[in-house]
């Protein structure tokens, strides 16, 4: 169990437990329950849910969540099938464990988390929320059940362990601006099989060291997020620039530039912010036209690869949007010299380029 997950779940459990003492109203989630006689029954699950939600359940608006749980004995083990509905959206979670008490705890914690997510966000819950938001407590698809699910289910009934597994969701339940936290929990590594499509547009960029003057560009990027990793392919169109180096006044070059970039980042989350060190490979394609009296040009192009590293910061604005800023440094594997006849070298690509970017990221 990752330390960050353990600490997150622990915090959640503490927060939930702190409120359980005030629980006195009914369960705000419609619940149906079937279980063998030797397992916790519906009343016990409802009580556990009330304990987890505490005063928040009493004060909150009615939930649109509905759930039906069923525990079956399979040999010497038990299987929980929890069907969850939210308006027209539904999902099913299946968990196996050696103890049906553990499974009843899983059901209660799952519903408590969803209830909090529902009431901490203006956005409606999605199928991904229903099926994955509380994946850390052990909700797995059928093929992924087994030992992993067993462990999670066992942990769900041991508060100090179960809480360890839910870092982001706990925060979502506690803070009003919890959209981004729920969003973070979806992609924060809680669900090992989650892939999310990420799209960045627009991206404003500036860099130095490639063309003779600082370059300003606009681009877009697309890629995938998986757990704490993000892989993006981006393209940038840079503003053209005219450069006259002297001492031959009037002689210079007109530069055009496009670039592509491949980046892989590993993020580290700090509440609403993420920081992600990245490895970067970029391909610059520059066209240059010599200018000056008597000079003609075919506007030749040249391209080269640069390798480097960077740091990206991400500030979640909502469930699906974030502000992204980044800096990077790249070493050019080639440094073309741009030469014009009769006046010689106009410019040369520098060995090191430094860049900064600012953009919006959208998760689909």
């Amino acid at each position, binding site marked *: 169990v990752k330390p960050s997950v353990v600490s997150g779940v622990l915090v959640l459990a503490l927060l939930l437990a702190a409120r359980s003492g005030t629980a006195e109203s009914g369960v705000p989630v419609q619940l149906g329950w079937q279980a063998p006689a030797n397992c916790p029954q519906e009343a016990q699950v409802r009580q556990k849910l009330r304990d987890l939600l505490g005063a928040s359940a009493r004060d909150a608006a009615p939930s649109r969540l509905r759930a039906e749980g069923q525990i079956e004995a399979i040999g010497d083990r038990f299987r929980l099938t929890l069907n969850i509905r939210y308006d027209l959206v539904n999902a099913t979670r299946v968990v196996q464990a050696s103890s049906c008490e553990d499974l009843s705890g899983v059901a209660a914690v799952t519903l408590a988390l969803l209830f909090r997510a529902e009431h901490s966000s203006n956005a409606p819950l999605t199928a991904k929320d229903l099926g994955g938001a509380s994946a850390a407590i052990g909700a797995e698809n059928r093929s992924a059940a087994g030992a992993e699910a067993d462990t999670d289910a066992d942990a769900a009934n041991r508060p100090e362990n179960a809480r360890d597994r839910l870092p982001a969701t706990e925060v979502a339940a506690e803070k009003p601006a919890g959209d981004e936290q729920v969003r973070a929990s979806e992609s924060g590594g809680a669900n090992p099989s989650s892939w999310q499509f990420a799209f960045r547009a627009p991206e404003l960029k500036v860099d130095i060291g490639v063309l003779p003057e600082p370059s300003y560009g606009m681009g877009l990027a697309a890629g995938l997020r998986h757990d704490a990793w993000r892989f993006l392919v981006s393209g940038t169109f840079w503003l053209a620039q005219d450069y006259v180096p*002297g*001492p*031959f*006044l*009037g*002689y210079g*070059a007109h530069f055009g530039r496009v670039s592509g970039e491949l980046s892989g980042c590993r993020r580290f989350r700090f509440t609403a912010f993420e920081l992600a060190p990245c490895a970067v490979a970029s391909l610059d394609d520059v066209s*240059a*036209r*010599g*200018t*000056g*009296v*008597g*000079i*003609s*040009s*075919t*506007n*030749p192009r*040249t391209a*080269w690869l640069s*390798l480097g590293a960077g740091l990206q910061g991400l500030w979640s604005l909502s469930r699906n949007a974030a502000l992204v800023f980044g800096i990077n440094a790249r*070493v*050019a*594997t*080639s*440094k*073309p*010299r*741009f*030469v*014009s*006849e*009769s*006046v010689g070298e*106009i410019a*040369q690509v520098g*060995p*090191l380029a430094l860049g900064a970017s600012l953009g919006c990221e959208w998760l689909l």
Partner: protein
Amino acid sequence: MPDGVVDHQRASAMVPATLAIAWLAFACEPTVTIGTCPEPSVADGGGAGTAGSANQGAVGVPWSTGFEDGLCGYHAALGYCYARHGATIELVKPPRPPPGGGEFVAAFTVSGDTTTALRSQARCVRQGVMPKSAYYGAWYFIPALVTSDGNWNLFHFLGGTSEEDSHPLWDVSLANKLDGQLELSLLNFLTLTPSRSFNVEPVPIGRWFQLEIKIVRSARPNGEVIVFQDGAVAIHLTDVITDDTAWGQWYVGNLAKTLVPALSTVYVDDVTIREDP
């Protein structure tokens, strides 16, 4: 495996990786030619179509450039232009129409600042084995009267086996007369003998004038050097050693050590080399 050993192995692996990146960063510097000169044009003051001779080491004659194709007239003849120590070269519309016509002239600007340790200079150069006897000429336009320390150079000749192994031969410069007006001066570097113009008008200010020098080359004391100002003989030397080597360079432009005011621009057009008929 102990952590220290692993760390050492990682550190060892970083060395070739770092070297590889450094090699990538510094080894590859391809040249991209983004501007080219056109083929020599007859319309440009007689053309510059003698590059074939220049390839063989000899300066082809006749040759001329009126800067209508920029600095390409020199490039086509394997010459070059340069500007350093605060100097610039610019192709501009002429302040007055030059005698040879055309749209562009070259503006050579230097900074004759006494605080500058090195001589500010902007020039264009022809190089190779010079003709046995030839006229080297250019039209100059000096917009304003300037006071110099005596080293305000317009023409310069070098001799040697190459640019790296060369020595000065002749200077044609501007010097202030007692009344402040400008006159031509000639310096023989082989004998360190200066000569001043005589029986000619002061160098005109604000109008084009032709500066021309005829050199009958000789490594023995039977050579001849004549400086012409607007076609009139200003300085005439006979029975002199003009060159002690076959290869040489001819500089046209502007060089100054100390000028008042410091910033000086001279305009140049229709640079020519023609053989003695």
